[in-house]
């Protein structure tokens, strides 16, 4: 760090009042920096005696604009290939029929392969799914408002991606996750099963308002 020297002539010989004012500002800035960095530290650090005692204060200070999470690829790196699939119940002349499962994540893989600048459009399904699991219980019932919203969000992303591949009126939609562990490295003694494990969500009703107009 190098300083930019500032003119000293004009500043020299400040009155007592001016110096006091500067000192007050210095104190305020110092206090603000200490408080801010303390909050950041205890927000990021694992749960401890201080962060538990002042949990509310820390959360109120950091949320919503200063929240941060640096557990990048940690504690475990991504090691699962997960695809989200969807199928629809469609009203046809012959009655209700269920469509085949459609791989919604395939679009994201296509959008990544051979691209130097992949888009954020691969995040809704991937991040939406983990948010969904965090905000739902074992029976896939939402445990918070965020849970209700992310479920609707996932449904709308799914409908946006599948509506062009379905003929007829979609009345219900169902999502499932197909997860397969990345095979262990060749030099490793560990083995993982090559099986795909499915997590199948209940059917969700679809209304015409569930179709986003901004389609790809």
């Amino acid at each position, binding site marked *: 760090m190098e*300083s930019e020297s*500032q003119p000293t002539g004009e500043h020299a010989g400040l009155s007592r009042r001016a110096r006091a004012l500067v000192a007050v500002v*210095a104190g305020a800035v110092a206090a603000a920096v200490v408080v801010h960095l303390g909050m950041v530290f205890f927000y990021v*650090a694992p749960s401890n005696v201080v962060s538990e005692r002042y949990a509310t204060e820390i959360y109120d200070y950091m949320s919503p*604009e200063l929240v941060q999470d640096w557990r990048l690829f940690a504690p475990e*790196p991504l*090691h699962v290939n997960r695809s989200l699939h969807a199928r629809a119940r469609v009203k046809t002349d012959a009655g209700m029929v269920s469509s085949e499962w459609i791989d919604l994540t395939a679009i994201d893989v296509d959008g990544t392969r051979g691209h130097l600048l992949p888009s*954020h459009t691969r995040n809704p399904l991937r*991040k939406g799914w983990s948010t969904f699991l965090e905000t739902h219980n074992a029976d896939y019932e939402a445990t918070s408002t965020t849970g209700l919203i992310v479920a609707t969000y996932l449904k709308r992303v799914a409908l946006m991606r599948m509506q062009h591949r379905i003929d007829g009126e979609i009345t219900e939609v169902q999502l499932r996750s197909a997860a397969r562990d990345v095979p262990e490295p060749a*030099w490793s003694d560990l083995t993982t099963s090559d099986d795909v494990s499915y997590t199948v969500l209940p059917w969700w009703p679809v209304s015409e308002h569930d179709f986003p107009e901004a389609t790809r």
Partner: protein
Amino acid sequence: MSETKRGNALARGYERITRSTLGAYQTAVVRIGVAATWLGFLLREWPNRHELYGPEGPLSSDLATQLLQEDAAFTVLLWSDTGWWFELCYVFAILASLALLLGWRTRTASVLFMIGVLSVQNRNGFIDDGGDNVLHLMAIYLVFARCGERFSLDAVFRRREGRDVPGVLLWSLVALTVLTAWAFGVLGGGWLLIFTGLLAVHAVWWIVDRFTGGEPRAVCDMATNLVHNGAVLVIIVQVCVLYASAGWYKIEGTRWQDGTAAYYPLQVDVFTPWPALSDAVSAYGLPILLMTYGTVIMQVAFPFTLFNRRIKNVVLACLIAEHIGIAILLGLPFFSLAIISADLIFLPTSLLRRVEARVGGWFGPLGPRRRGADAPGVSDDAAATDDGAPTTPTTSTEALDRV
């Protein structure tokens, strides 16, 4: 004896933080990096903007409004759910990034940039990644920094005292916008207070520049330096917290312990833009082990290397190189660019001075010259006199967008 020495050192330290802008070069390159990353992102997502953030996208205005009732994050995008408002805000965010990148009226641009970043990111909290998180924080921190003193249009076209008509117009426009937003009931509470406060600070600066000069101006300058230097410290510690926690949390993971962690993401479909390259990189155990352990060691060690300039520079270069690798191999360019931009706060000044000398050769003087150091500085003052402007003995540094 030693007590007076210590007292002198304290006094000198106080002198430095009140009378100088520490890390003026570094904050300037962080500004450029952060603004360029966000600008690149906004342009990249231009075709997908409706799908990601638009009122008719999967996260409709209605859903986003419900979500924001949960955490009250700031976004202007939800002030209206009409299509034209969304387009206007998106274009505004692009222009604000451009202004900050170029260092055009940097202190105002940094606030507009922050509004753009927060508005777009907070519009859809389901899709952000670590890079967005870095940009979010840096956008806030840069508001407090004098990040336009180097490598900026402000530094090239140093404005003269007292006749800053475009500045007054810009201020009035922003003030009018804030007032209108308040009148419509979309802006209130803490953010209204923050914007009003920032407007007041700019107004005070204009007054001391134009009318008082002298001591009030000196006090403003020192207060601004203090805030800037505080922001520099916050950015430094923030990046250290980022690396330290990223490193320490990895240590818990079995794959980081057994040295295979770097292998797995290279086999995940949505993170392999170049599968053949990923396979080649992840084919052998030893390179993967080196990458895995190297990452943890560098991230955990980084804060401590700051005490040794040479080691710090080596580790910094490695971390930047690693993020370039991540950008290409895992297809995370904007994530990597955001983190590299924040890393730039640690670049050595000597390097940045060389860059300045090189760049300065192409574009003329970039950055303020020291008082009386060279003739052009004097001729600027002469020009001011010709215009009949008040002939306050100003330096080029003072004539910057200086709040």
